[in-house]
C-alpha cells in the first residue's frame, strides 16, 4: 500500500551514502543535532510514525534541500536526486496518512516542534547542511520502524 516506501528509502540511502562524508564534513557543530536531541526519533510512538514521517519529509522538501548548494557538481547532482526521491516518497506518505487517517499525537507534535526549533536556532545554510548530514538518522529510524 501507500505506506510501503522501502524502494524509495533504499534509493535515498544509496544517494546519501555517496555524499555522506562530504556533507558531514561541512557541519562543524558536534554539540547540536536537528533530529536526534534532545528528543530521539526512536521514542516516537508507533501510532504517530506515519504522521511524523510525513511531516519530516515535508520539512526536508520545504526547508532543507533548497539551501543545500555546494561547489561540487557531483554532490549537487546527488542532492537533487535525493530531493526528487523525497518528493515522491512524501506524496506516498501523504496518501498513507489520508488512507489511514494518521494523526500526530501531542507528544510527537512536541518532538516535531523541537526539531523545527533546533533548525531555526542556526543560520539557514548551516541548519540545512546539518539536516542533510543527518539523513541517516531519519533513514535508520524509518527502516527500523517498518
Amino acid at each position, binding site marked *: 500500500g501507500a505506506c510501503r516506501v522501502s524502494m524509495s528509502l533504499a534509493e535515498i540511502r544509496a544517494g546519501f551514502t555517496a555524499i555522506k562524508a562530504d556533507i558531514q564534513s561541512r557541519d562543524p557543530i*558536534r554539540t547540536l543535532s536537528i533530529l536526534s536531541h534532545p528528543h530521539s526519533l526512536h521514542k516516537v510512538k508507533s501510532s504517530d510514525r506515519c504522521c511524523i514521517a510525513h511531516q519530516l519529509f515535508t520539512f526536508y522538501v520545504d526547508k532543507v534541500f533548497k539551501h543545500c548548494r555546494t561547489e561540487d557538481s557531483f554532490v549537487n547532482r546527488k542532492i537533487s536526486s535525493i530531493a526528487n526521491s523525497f518528493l515522491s516518497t512524501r506524496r506516498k506518505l501523504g496518501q498513507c496518512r489520508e488512507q489511514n487517517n494518521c494523526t500526530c499525537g501531542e507528544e510527537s507534535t512536541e518532538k516535531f516542534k523541537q526539531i523545527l526549533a533546533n533548525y531555526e536556532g542556526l543560520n539557514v545554510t548551516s541548519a540545512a547542511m546539518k539536516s542533510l548530514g543527518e539523513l541517516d538518522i531519519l533513514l535508520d529510524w524509518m527502516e527500523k520502524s517498518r
Partner: protein
Amino acid sequence: SGELYCSLPNPRNVHFESINMKNVLHWSAPEGTGDGVLYKVKYAVYGVGKWIRKPECGNINRTWCDLSSETSDYEEQYYASVKAFLNGACSDWMETTRFNPLTDTKIAPPMVSVSSTDRSISIILTTPEKWKRSPEEESVSLLQVYPGLRYNVSVLNKKTKKRWLFSISNNTLVVPWLEPGTAYCVSAQIRVTTPRLDSGFSK
C-alpha cells in the same frame, strides 16, 4: 593544568574499525616521532554538548582504544578524538568522521553447520551476535538489529565445480538431489539491503 604548547605533529588517520559493533578506535603515530609518544582519547555523542575522556586510554603508548562500551547505543552517532604527547610537547586533538554504528560496522559471516544424507544436505546458519560487554550480558543477534537481513548460500560440487547459489531469509536450507559419494563445499554470506551491508562468505 593549562594547555601545553602544541607543536607536536598530529596523530594520523584517526578512524573507527567496527565488526559486529565491536567499535575500536585506531590511529597512526604522528609523522617522524619514533618511540615514546603517549596518547589521550576522548569521545562525544553527536548532538550532546560534551566530550568525555576515556580513562583507560589516558597516557597510552598503543595506537588503538576500544570504545565499544561507550558507543554501544546504535541509535546514536559518535565522534572520537586523539591527542599525542612527547617530551612536554603535544599535538592538536584529531577527530574521526561522524561514526554511525548501525551503518559503519562490518558484519562477520554466519556460522554454518551442515548435516547430510546420501542425496541431500541440510544447512543451518547462525547470525553473529552484536558485541556485548560481558558473557553474562544478554545476547542480541544482528538479526534483531537488521530486520531485513538475508543469507546467500553457495553449494559447490567439488568434482564438477558446478555451483548453486541460494538467497534465503530464514536460516535453514535443504539441498536435495545431490550425487551420492561426492564432496560438496558449503559457504554462506549475510546480506543487509538497507543500510547496505554484506559480510564476506564463510570459510
